[in-house]
């Protein structure tokens, strides 16, 4: 795998400006994000590193339209998401974003195919659920319920579900967190392939520094702020990673 040639030349699809997020927990105000500025570019593979409580999940939730900042602005292309309201955020998530969660969050009462169809039913230009599952190597598990699948398989169904709508950006929150070493690598390979073959922008949140090597950029967060941004000269392939 080689460095994506267009990574730096590509226009920014996300532009975050002075993002602040404060939670009220009982009587304590928690400052999850303190004036974060961030840009994400089309087609790049970003790894967001940081310890628990550093604000990386909050940032991802805000970029992904799951949450709104307390102050500051988030632009997706020319659109200001922080001003849009629920209707805009729903449309944004429906059309442009794919999510992958640590615990897969499949609907237990639906089969693999039906879980993917849940998304293709409402997306404007989806692939067929079978096609998406073939991309993650699960063509032979179409009619299995989540309880009949291993953790790795469940996560790959989740990836299929996320990419089936052909999203512009894929947000992955600790996608390997619940998986063993080799299964985790398998899942990362699928994500790298989606980035490469479909040109989807991929953002992975992890506290596993080993994964950083496979990204175009590695952004490290600490205490609700961006601590460092590193650009890898060469993206490692998932099988080269060690942790």
């Amino acid at each position, binding site marked *: 795998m080689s460095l994506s040639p267009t990574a730096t030349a590509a226009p920014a699809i996300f532009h975050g400006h002075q993002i602040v997020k404060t939670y009220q927990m009982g009587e304590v105000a928690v400052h999850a994000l303190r004036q974060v500025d961030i840009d994400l570019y089309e087609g790049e593979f970003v790894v967001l590193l940081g310890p628990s409580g550093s604000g990386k999940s909050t940032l991802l939730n805000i970029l992904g339209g*799951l949450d709104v900042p307390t102050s500051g602005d988030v632009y997706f292309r020319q659109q200001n998401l922080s001003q849009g309201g629920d209707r805009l955020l729903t449309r944004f*998530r429906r059309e442009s974003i794919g999510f992958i969660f640590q*615990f897969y*969050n499949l609907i237990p009462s639906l089969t693999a195919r*039906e879980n993917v169809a849940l998304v293709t039913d*409402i997306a404007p230009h989806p692939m067929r659920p079978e096609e998406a599952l073939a991309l993650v190597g699960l063509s032979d598990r179409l009619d299995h319920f989540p309880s009949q699948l291993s953790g790795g398989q469940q996560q790959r169904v989740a990836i299929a579900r996320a990419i089936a709508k052909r999203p512009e950006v894929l947000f992955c929150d600790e996608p390997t967190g619940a998986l063993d070493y080799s299964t985790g690598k398998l899942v990362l390979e699928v994500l790298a392939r989606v980035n490469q073959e479909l040109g989807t922008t991929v953002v992975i949140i992890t506290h596993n520094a080993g994964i950083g090597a496979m990204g175009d950029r590695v952004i490290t967060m600490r205490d609700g702020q961006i601590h460092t941004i590193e650009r890898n000269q060469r993206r490692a392939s998932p099988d080269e990673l060690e942790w």
Partner: protein
Amino acid sequence: MQSIDRKLLRDLITLRGQVIAIVLIVACGIASMVTMTSTYQSLQLSQTQYYSQYRFTDVFVQLKRAPEGVMAQIREIPGVGQGRSRVVETVTLDVPGLDDPATGRLVSIPEQPRAILNDIALQSGRYIQPDRLDEVIASPAFVAANQLALGDTISAVINGRWQELRIVGTALSPEYLYEISGTELLPDNQRFGVFWMGRQALATAFDLDGAFNDVVLTLTPGANEQAVIFRLDQILERYGGLGAYGRDNQVSHRFLEDDLDGLQVMAVILPVIFLGIAAFLLNMVLARLVSTQRDQIAVLKAFGYSNLEVGLHFLKLVLVVVALGAILGIGLGRWLGENFTHFYVQYYQFPSVQYRAGARVIVGAVGVSAIAALIGAFHAVQGVVSLPPAEAMRPEPPASFKPTIVERMGLQRWLSPAGRIILRNLERRPLQALMAMVGISMAVAILVVGGYFSDAIDQIMAIQFQTVQREDITLTFTQPLSGQVRHDLAQLSGVLRVEPFRSVPVRFRYGHRTRLGSITGLSAPSTLRQLIDQDMQAVPIPDDGIVLTTKLAELLHLKIGDPLTVEVLEGARPTRQVPVAGLVDELVGLATYMHVDALNALMQEDTSYSGAYLLVDQQQITALYSQLKQTPSVASVAQRETAIHQFNETIGATSGAMNAVLMLFATIISAGVIYNAARIALSERCRELATLRIIGFTQREIAFILLGEQGALILAAVPVGWLLGYGLAWVLNQSPAVDSEMVRLPFVIHPASYLFALLVTALAAAGSGLLIGHQLRRLDLIAVLKTRE
């Protein structure tokens, strides 16, 4: 099918036990509404059609005798549409195969069939022939009850002579939809029948040639009924008019209206209870579903499902429940409604009744259920909609527990750890616990109300037939007889005691209120007909003054000591003021009493009697009956025993069927509520319970924790249900359906009724407990601990 709908289907299958319970309750709500409303509408429609097709009149009046020429005067009263004069007489009958004398009402009809007011609907046979003076058309119920056939004859005492009447046809009339002679509660078709006879033949027999003694009138639209009645009474004053009245006081119409009112009340009360409970259960189940599916909801939202789509998804579940409940409820409601309608038709004789559960009834019932269910679901679904996707992704925060009141009061050492868990759980969700309690209380209350109905009816029986009416036989005479009659009657076979009475038709007037009625003058001491006070104790008849039934005093706004104006409608027709000497709490009718001497004095007449109460030796009753049949001065013979039998048979069967239905309803409610509450508790706490099992609690101990919570709820709910039932019965007791002029249900609920309610609820609870216990035994310990909450 969309994937999200597939999820709905699978969720429904997973929740099937709870869904079935709610579907059944919704079905009961819809069924009760469809049953009551469709029965009401079917009867009302039949009534309206019958009335208009057979020209049921608006005003009625009986009188002694008026020449036919007076009719022209009557027809000229402003507001009168059409009028018909008639001859109507009540006679004693000798029916083949019946020992005791029966009573017949002979009503005149034209010799040739033509459209008349209060027309007859010929059911079988033919119309009378003009030249045959003995031909009559009889009511089919009388013919059937006495196993008579067309062509059979019965004997009637007509003007003091026995005369044969030949039945040539059977017919119904809107005037006798409820076929009673006037004072009793239930039709006795064997001993009372209506006969239509040619006007000329009847007039000749009763010396009413060219005259009449009964008038029926229709009013023009917008006419003032009171004004017409006032003018009519003025005209008939000198012809012995007994006071005109409108449909409201026409016995048959009044009974049907009271029953229709009752149906309308039940058509509101029952559905409100069921749908209220269904709404609560849906709320409970959905709230739980939402909390177990927080992460699923979050995923749906993360992938771009809008709040509307997610909200609709959960609402669809509600609509499926309503749809299933509707299918079941409409079927059940139509079946019950048809049976109910036919049940009423046993008492009310319509020429035809078409059972109809119209689209509007059904749409209305389903619509109301859907609205109730959606209201119940609203809160839970609102929770889904307002759940921000990022928030939903995090597991639900652990429930916060506090020491309970009991513990804060320092009483915890009397509680086992399991007991503490139960108490804390109840206190943590006070609203949920309260609602479950209300649901169970409702079931208990329904049963208490059922008990109230049968207890009240028992009470009426006891008071009316043991305390008030103690005679074996009541005789009425064709005209008032002198004091000699007491001695004459005592000579008849088997007569042990004779207490003659005088009954006088009157119009009561107090202020601007008037009321037709009659005064019964009782001889003192009156042992066969007792007056009862508020405590249902016998009180003596006062020497002076008048004693009214409390209900009549209420209608006239009278109290003890007030001067009541009495306008006598027979004899010299004196008008007198009589002080109200007392009130009696009779439960049936609007009787008024005086001392017979005081009444005769008021009439300015010598001692005379219009009837007598007899105590007889049952051994000699057959002989007595045949002697009575041969006594022309006896107009009617009524037996207490027959009335009791009639009452038991019909009312007993009715209240039995009604109680069975109420019991079924109550069982469904309490089982549904208890099962749902326990099932939800199980799903919320299966991790906790599995943990307890792993650390060594036995199956029985964890069952105690889970079911103990429900048990505590039931224990708390039953007394509340008793109170609620008491209150509901009290409210029903105030409604005109059971507090009518005809009959007033006393407010009485026996301890056995409360106990019965407890028993049924306990059985329903035990059934649900068994089901839950079965599910507890299948609790997979490892799987439960592995799944992420």
